[in-house]
């Protein structure tokens, strides 16, 4: 039977959490009811990138893009769109200003301004079906490498492409492979770092959920290039869906003879094993990761020796990030020059970014290096919600920094971002608006690293704790200007004397906020005020008597019983009992509670 339509339905973790599964059952039921179940093909894909609008789907041939789907929408989609060919306007994306609906996926500025290399298949194929990967040139890079290229050719192509590691530090990938190839020893390993722990980062998860074979193919090519027979993927246990999809992809690849002995009839043999983390951020650091795969407590060790010389079980080991691996097959197929035609002089290709925080389109994007922060935040991300003012963007995770509005025109590349005191990191972009307190943000990032410190070395273990105490004091309005001096000195000590990147990077959020938002620190210290009204010790909640409709909702929701009714029935907050949790402020339907 001819196909009436082809539906790509996002089954990424965010869309699933938003109800994709129940929508899918409703859609299938309606298709059966309309008698066209056999004429419509539903493909569950990985993340489209527009996670905030989930669940989302695209109906082809036109590419009509429907968002925020609910089970009750299924009937209308089947009756109107699929049977009568009429677009269901109300389920389209609306442009914030024009209020105009955007019918197809290609009309969205969000997609128009992207270049997808690492994400080339994510959202377009069924990750559980290897045939779909193969149909889009999958494993042809592997075939090319095994039949037409020597390991040295592969390394020189990757070197020429200018690809740099996407896991944080930006080390040239081709060079790492060359070192791995030259390292002495016959037993070597490749490792895919899928520990993705940076808060605000989810590009690696989406690649593994949406296109697991691209990672497998990349690792096969890397294994061939350096002379390894075995690879490991180290995934954090917080990603059960990614683990499931990757496991199934590995099985299929084995069944197709793409993993195992004598791959594609050559004398190259290679296999991949998955290893699962157990909730320790520091295990993303390469030497800690090695310890963890070896079944030890995941603590970093000093380098050198670097893993390329002495990694897993003391053998040469090349470790690359998920996104780095996913870039390899297209580089081999299309050539180094093609890849290097994107990006800047020193940062070639594209980078995947995760947009989170106060931005209209939270989700995942891939853009050429060198694009400005402004383009990302405004043209692609759709700007700041609710007409609020942009304040800063935190880039690079807990070792990164906060970049203020003055620098929105900075091109995103390794060097420019570092020059501002932040780092490219894994690509998390957390946008903050006027309602966010920068001292609080710095404190929160630091408490993350402090919490995750493995405790092996003193500056990181003790220094971050002391820094946190000072920040805590400041947010309580008890800080002094001497504290600020000590905070800064400590930050430099921790940065310069910690053993691994976790400690070395921990002070960055503090240092950048001190540099760009010093007046906010001073407001907490001198005026005992939190300008963004975030720090609880410096604010209080009050019922506006004239506005209160006596509905008692706040009273019933206060977790500590701090709200009581006075003689005329108006509700009042007892400041001595209030813990400033803000629940009453959120639940009052009449905005009768103010925060000051």
């Amino acid at each position, binding site marked *: 039977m001819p196909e009436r339509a082809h539906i790509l339905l996002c089954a990424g973790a965010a869309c699933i959490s938003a109800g994709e599964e129940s929508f899918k059952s409703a859609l299938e039921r309606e298709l059966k009811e309309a008698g066209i179940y056999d004429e419509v093909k539903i493909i569950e894909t990985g993340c489209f990138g527009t996670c905030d609008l989930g669940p989302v789907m695209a109906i082809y041939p036109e590419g009509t893009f429907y968002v925020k789907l609910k089970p009750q929408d299924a009937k209308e989609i089947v009756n109107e769109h699929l049977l009568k060919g009429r677009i269901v306007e109300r389920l389209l994306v609306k442009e914030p200003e024009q209020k105009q609906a955007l019918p197809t996926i290609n009309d969205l500025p969000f997609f128009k301004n992207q270049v997808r290399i690492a994400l080339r298949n994510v959202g377009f194929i069924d990750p559980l079906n290897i045939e779909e990967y193969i149909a889009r040139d999958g494993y042809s890079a592997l075939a090319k490498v095994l039949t037409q290229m020597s390991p040295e050719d592969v390394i020189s192509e990757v070197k020429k492409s200018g690809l740099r590691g996407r896991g944080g530090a930006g080390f040239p990938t081709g060079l790492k492979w060359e070192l791995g190839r030259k390292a002495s020893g016959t037993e070597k390993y490749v490792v895919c770092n899928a520990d993705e722990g940076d808060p605000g980062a989810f590009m690696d998860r989406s690649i593994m959920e949406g296109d697991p074979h691209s990672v497998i193919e990349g690792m096969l090519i890397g294994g061939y290039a350096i002379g390894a027979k075995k690879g490991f993927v180290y995934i954090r246990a917080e990603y059960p869906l990614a683990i499931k999809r990757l496991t199934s992809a590995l099985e299929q690849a084995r069944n197709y003879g793409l993993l195992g002995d004598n791959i594609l009839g050559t004398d190259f043999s290679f296999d991949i094993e998955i*290893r699962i983390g157990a*909730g320790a951020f520091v295990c993303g650091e390469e030497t800690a990761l090695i310890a963890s795969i070896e079944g030890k407590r995941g603590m970093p060790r000093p380098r050198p020796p670097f893993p390329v010389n002495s990694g897993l079980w003391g053998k040469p080991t090349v470790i690359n990030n998920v996104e780095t691996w996913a870039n390899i097959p297209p580089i081999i197929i299309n050539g180094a020059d093609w890849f290097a035609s994107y990006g800047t002089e020193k940062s070639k290709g594209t980078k995947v970014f995760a947009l*989170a925080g106060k931005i209209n389109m939270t989700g995942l994007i891939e853009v050429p290096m060198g694009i400005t922060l402004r383009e990302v935040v405004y043209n692609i991300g759709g700007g700041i919600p609710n007409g609020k003012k942009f304040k800063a963007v935190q880039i690079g995770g807990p070792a990164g920094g906060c970049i203020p509005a003055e620098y929105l025109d900075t091109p995103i590349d390794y060097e420019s971002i570092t020059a501002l005191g932040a780092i490219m990191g894994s690509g998390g972009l957390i946008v903050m608006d006027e309602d966010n307190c920068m001292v609080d*943000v710095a404190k929160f990032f630091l408490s993350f690293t402090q919490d995750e410190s493995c405790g092996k070395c003193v500056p990181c273990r003790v220094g971050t704790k002391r820094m946190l105490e000072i920040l805590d004091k400041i947010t309580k309005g008890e800080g002094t200007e001497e504290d600020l001096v000590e905070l800064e000195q400590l930050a430099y000590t921790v940065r310069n004397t910690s053993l691994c990147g976790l400690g070395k990077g921990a002070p960055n959020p503090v240092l950048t906020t001190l540099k760009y938002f010093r007046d906010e620190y001073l407001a907490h210290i001198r005026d005992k005020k939190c300008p963004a009204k975030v720090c609880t010790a410096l604010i209080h909640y009050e019922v506006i008597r004239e506005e209160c409709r006596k509905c008692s909702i706040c009273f019933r929701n206060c977790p500590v019983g701090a709200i009581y009714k006075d003689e005329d029935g108006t509700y009042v907050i007892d400041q001595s009992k209030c813990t400033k949790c803000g629940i009453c402020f959120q*639940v009052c339907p009449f905005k009768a509670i103010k925060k000051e």
Partner: protein
Amino acid sequence: MKTKEEILKSFPKNPDYIIEILHALQDNNPYNYLTPEDIKLCAEYLDLPVSYVEGVASFYSMFSLKPRGRYVIRLCDSPPCHLVGSESLLEYLEKKLKIKVGETTPDRLFTLELTSCLGVCAVAPAMMINDEVYGNLTFEKIDKILEEKRGNL
């Protein structure tokens, strides 16, 4: 449910697999924790000292050495979730469940924990209950989820 011996035997007798084995033993326990017996069996199977296995288990935050609830709620408290209000959700959950972080309800149904980023920051604030992810959380959504879990039994 598998016996502990079956679980152990499904892994090579190789100390590298210790984390995998501990995960499997913990997942097999209805109260989501590693019993002293689990630790001992794992140590014997891999021919490692009990103290070593304990050391590994205590290093990783996902392993628990004390009983937890049937449902382990892990609310994300990383910065992106914090920016959009995870803190008030925490107070709300503590109030609803009448327990603090790290505690288990007396009916052994829920344990409340905090976790670092779950990688679904696009739908922040978020939490996981066992293997399931919940995003765009609000007080009402939490009410619904908890009711659903209670109803499951």
